């Protein structure tokens, strides 16, 4: 009897849930992704290489991944500030601001793209003031960045917010009573506790931005080598009935995104471990 129990985990159903997890992931994620690589396999290695290293494709990777990383970083900074303000202070209309954060989630991306373009075009609300200063946003790579910041914002706020709510102000008070300056409290108490969540938010915002098509397409201007995003290159190839070429580019996106997300995950694990050692 005792021996039989010794092998058991406290929670029942390990095999069942693991089996279900694997089957579900395969069906929903792995099978479609495998199809991407299979469709590519009709190309020879040379053709594949030529497709994925074409100047237009290369320029689009730089824009898509560069703008996505930058947008996620900007969102990480300002998202953290927003979450802080929403959790730590109470002010009139806080609930409304809180609800506004989620709007980019819910809004159809095309609507977001069209509104942003209308606002930042040279005759738009903001564009008319920026244009005389020589700042062009709509139909430039900056426009792409603006759209990606817009759609990525909720991810950071919503991942940081619950952690911040759980983080008692007592910790900050304790730090202060032990003689830490405000900056030290922030740097050594608050940020370490929030960092894993912040990284998750960053990763989510980044992943969302890499795949974004609907909103960017309206504001980008879509000029080859300048403001063409990688998803547009894929759509363009599909329009030419070039499935293999489209999936070749898609597989590059998949691999790069996977590697970047993996790095972020590893970073998170490392932070969690080293954070544990310190305390």
């Amino acid at each position, binding site marked *: 009897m005792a021996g039989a129990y010794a092998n058991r985990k406290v929670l029942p159903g390990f095999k069942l849930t693991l089996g279900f997890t694997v089957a579900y992931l395969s069906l929903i994620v792995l099978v479609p992704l495998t199809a991407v690589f299979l469709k590519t396999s009709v190309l020879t290695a040379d053709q594949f290489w030529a*497709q994925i290293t074409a100047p237009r494709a290369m320029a689009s990777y730089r824009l898509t991944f560069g703008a996505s990383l930058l947008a996620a970083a900007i969102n990480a900074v300002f998202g953290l500030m927003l979450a802080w303000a929403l959790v730590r202070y109470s002010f009139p209309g806080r609930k409304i601001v809180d609800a506004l954060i989620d709007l980019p989630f819910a809004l159809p991306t095309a609507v977001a793209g069209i509104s942003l373009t*209308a606002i930042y075009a040279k005759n738009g609300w903001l564009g008319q003031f920026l244009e005389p200063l020589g700042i062009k946003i709509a*139909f430039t790579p900056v426009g792409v960045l603006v759209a990606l910041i817009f759609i990525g914002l909720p991810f950071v706020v919503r991942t940081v917010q619950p952690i911040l709510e759980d983080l008692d102000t007592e910790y900050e008070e304790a730090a202060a009573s032990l003689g830490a300056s405000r900056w030290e409290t922030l740097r050594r108490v608050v940020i370490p506790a929030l960092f894993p969540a912040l990284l998750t938010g960053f990763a989510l915002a980044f992943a969302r931005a890499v795949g974004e098509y609907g909103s960017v397409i*309206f504001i980008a201007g879509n000029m080859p080598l300048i403001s063409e995003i990688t998803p547009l290159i894929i759509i363009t190839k599909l329009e*030419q*009935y*070039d499935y293999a*070429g489209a999936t070749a580019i898609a597989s590059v996106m998949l691999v790069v995104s996977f590697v970047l997300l993996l790095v972020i995950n590893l970073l998170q694990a490392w932070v969690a471990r080293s954070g544990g050692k310190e305390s």
Partner: protein
Amino acid sequence: MFASYLPVKAGFSARIEGWLHRAVLVASFLLIGGIVAFAQSPASLLNVSYDVSRELYKDINTVFIAKWKAKTGQGIAVNQSHGGSSRQALSVIGGLEADVVTMNQTADIDILVERGGLVAKDWRKAFPFEAAPYTSTTVFIVRKGNPKALKDWGDLVREGLQVIVPNPKTSGNGRYTYLAAWAYGLKTKGSEAGAKDFVKALFANVPVLDGGGRGATTTFAQREIGDVLITFENEATALAKEFGEGKFEVVYPSLSVDATAPVAIVETVTAKRHSREAAKAYLDFLYSAEAQEIIAKHSFRPADPAILAKYRDRFPAVQSFKVEDTLGGWEKVQREHFADGTIYDQIMTRR
């Protein structure tokens, strides 16, 4: 172990079996009845079409449905699906059950012949005028009073001018514009190299490449970007309707392209759905005087010469060419101009 309780349940299972038999029998009658009824009259047709034909086919369908009811005594619904022409063709290849396709370039029907034989090889012969019940043509739209005095293609390469064109990579409209410019370059410079320089200079003046024709119209009219918009003639009417008469002017260049709108029956789908007769009647109807009038009303050039002549004031005569005649057909154009790394990519990436 199993056999020991079988006799006890025998009566019960026999009864279930009896029910099952009857149920299956009834179900198959219903099914056969349904199939027969379906075979006699398809209750619906699906017309898979391109982006800006939405309003046109809505008007056409209303009249067709009434005609069909009068002729056969049966009701029919015509469903519409609209989107970028090539993307729509992809959907049909992917299994969208279109009874008829009405596109804005022949390449998007040819691909249906190529991939899976969805459309008969000689689809151009199946209906009059190369199976194109109407055409449109590429025109310039300029701001009121034509402040930059743009008359012809040659004016568009002037330095500092902004020309709005939809992306030829994703839009049939953009491809037609590019090809019209190419043909003008060929005619005036007399060589392919000269034509290439000309389209390169023209596209160097393009500040934004919108995904489709409607997007380009918005950029030009609403965002007030660009000195001239190059698009289909029917967009000019849509513009006037949306933004008021007199804000824009239409300029007809010395050379334009015939943008035919070809139609075809999807053989595999109509055979499966027993809807070929209705599909043929639908496409035939597009050539009737009544439908041709509706087409003219929506600012597409009707194929019927008599009706076109009637509206000559709205459709001035233009010198136009067909992609099939002058440039060797869409397949060749696609291979030499728009495929990755070919002429269009070259002029755009070495600016």
